[in-house]
């Protein structure tokens, strides 16, 4: 191996390991060395253990020597600190889960483990995935590897920054309103949110259960597709998972080279005031690239797009207020001592939760409370129907939808943290995909004059993951934005 080991992507690492050009222990050690070197500047990881990772890697090497030919045997992957990996801490970026050690594997982890992966590190997240910058993490803000004065996005900012900085070939993340795609765009990596119901959330710390979805952040669409293939599919532990067969789309994704015969929709609602002109320019250039690859570009309408953020900031906090009721200091996590049970709950939650979580839990409690339920929660559920309907109509006219992932490139640390509404508007192009329960992909599509990455959003109908992955792969076959690395 001539290049640095940490340069290897997920599939490249699998190939190198299969050819015995490198051992899992060497690869894992290279990533841990790099993590130790860069973490003081990035803070993208909440936990890693050299001993634990090397033990897993050595076990993978021994299995290979004994004839084990599992496709991802010994391939390291980083995990968002929201997903339970048995024996590792799982904090969800919150003080209330400080010291919690996962007693079981999330289904996605069990599947990656069965495929042979090594869990090399845990990545930083906004507290309970509530945020768009990682600034709400109790473990400090992650920095963007392209400019450490800027945020990496969020909530999966740690996963995106770690993959961009090559601390791991790929990472698992979660997306409730854009938390995979937005940080992927900010960090110049590929992020993929599968359809609601495609990937199990069993063992994924719940935020808003009608919206949460687990997916990969990787260096390329191919790598994201490879991770997706392992984690997707029906799980008896998550009744929202679909029995629909996942199929093996990876060979087709790897072979995708053009977009002939595809109709791609361009919604005018995604090119509006508030979209940074430089990001717009990069998005439009990416759309032209898709046209040059053979796609027919058609105009589509998503008339209720502008209501997505308001709808989301009723539904998601409402669900969060219910999901986070379990953090009461009784069964796990932090407890504030008190002689009185009610006071123990109130003090535990007051001291254990950060400001953004408190804000959303109170908001969610309010919109569900007697007298306000119909005006807020029920109304938002109806608006959700309208937003879903927009996509159904649009997909009658096109195979997938293109647009920007974010209205701006990465902003500066602290720039938006005092104004929640401004922060929430950063999800304007991504939340509707969650509300509609469909799938979305963010692929790097260039850099602003400040040297900051931007992402092209490819949105597909429910369960058409293979289609949008092929579109992203064809785009990456023709471009090399995803091969650029930050100088860190």
């Amino acid at each position: 191996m001539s290049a640095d080991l940490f340069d290897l992507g997920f599939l490249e690492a699998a190939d190198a390991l299969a050819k015995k050009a490198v051992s899992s222990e060497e690869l894992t050690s290279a990533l841990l060395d790099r993590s130790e070197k860069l973490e003081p500047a990035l803070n993208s990881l909440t936990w890693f253990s050299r001993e634990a990772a090397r033990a897993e890697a050595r076990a993978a090497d021994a299995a290979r020597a004994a004839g084990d030919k599992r496709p991802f045997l010994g391939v390291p992957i980083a995990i968002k600190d929201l997903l339970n990996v048995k024996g590792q801490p799982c904090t969800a970026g919150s003080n209330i889960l400080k010291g919690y050690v996962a007693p079981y594997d999330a289904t996605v982890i069990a599947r990656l483990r069965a495929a042979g992966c090594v869990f090399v590190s845990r990545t930083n997240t906004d507290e309970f995935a509530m945020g768009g910058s990682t600034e709400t993490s109790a473990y400090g803000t992650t920095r963007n590897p392209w400019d450490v004065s800027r945020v990496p996005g969020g909530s999966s900012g740690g996963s995106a920054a770690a993959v961009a900085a090559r601390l791991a070939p790929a990472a698992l993340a979660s997306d409730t309103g854009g938390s995979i795609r937005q940080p992927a765009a900010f960090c110049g990596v590929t992020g993929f949110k599968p359809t609601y119901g495609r990937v199990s959330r069993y063992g994924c710390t719940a935020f808003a259960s009608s919206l949460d979805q687990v997916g990969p952040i990787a260096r390329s669409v191919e790598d994201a597709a490879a991770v997706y293939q392992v984690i997707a599919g029906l799980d008896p532990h998550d009744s929202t998972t679909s029995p629909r067969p996942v199929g093996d789309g990876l060979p087709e994704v790897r072979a995708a080279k053009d977009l002939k015969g595809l109709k791609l929709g361009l919604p005018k609602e995604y090119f509006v005031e508030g979209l940074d002109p430089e990001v717009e320019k990069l998005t439009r250039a990416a759309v032209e690239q898709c046209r040059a690859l053979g796609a027919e570009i058609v105009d589509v309408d998503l008339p209720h797009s502008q209501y997505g953020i308001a709808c989301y900031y009723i539904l998601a906090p409402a669900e969060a207020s219910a999901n986070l009721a379990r953090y009461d200091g009784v069964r796990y996590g932090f407890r504030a001592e008190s002689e009185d049970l009610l006071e123990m709950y109130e003090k535990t939650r007051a001291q254990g939760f950060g400001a953004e979580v408190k804000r959303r839990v109170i908001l969610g409690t309010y919109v569900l409370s007697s007298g306000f339920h119909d005006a807020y929660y029920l109304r938002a559920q109806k608006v959700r129907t309208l937003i879903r309907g927009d996509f159904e109509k649009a997909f009658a006219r096109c195979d997938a939808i293109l647009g920007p992932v974010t209205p701006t490139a990465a902003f500066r640390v602290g720039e938006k943290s005092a104004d929640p509404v401004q922060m929430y508007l950063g999800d304007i192009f991504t939340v509707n995909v969650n509300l509609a329960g469909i799938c979305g992909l963010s692929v790097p599509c260039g850099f602003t004059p400040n040297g900051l990455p931007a992402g092209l959003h490819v949105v597909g109908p429910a369960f058409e993951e293979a289609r949008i992955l092929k579109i992203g792969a064809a785009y990456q076959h023709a471009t090399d934005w995803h091969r650029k690395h930050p100088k860190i």
Partner: protein
Amino acid sequence: MAMKFSENADRMDVRYVAGLARMALSDKEETQLQGQLDDILAFVGELKKLDVSGVAPTDDASGTLNAWREDEPATGLAREAALANAPLARHGQFVVPKVIE
């Protein structure tokens, strides 16, 4: 990016709602949250402008109604594993402050 705020937005009693959510708030937090939640409520109140009469609510994005499986006994978490993260456990049980006088 519509973000014109309604002028007659609701104003919540933050301390009361925090109580419903079992969260103590300091006076400083209450003041800060009141301002922020007023802004957020005004923002989400934009939905009131939409005509949603005759629209059915969506409560599940997948459109599935029920998922059935055989009701078969299976091994769950062992008691020791379930108690391992407890702030306080004794005699195989979670310990909480006394609730009965």
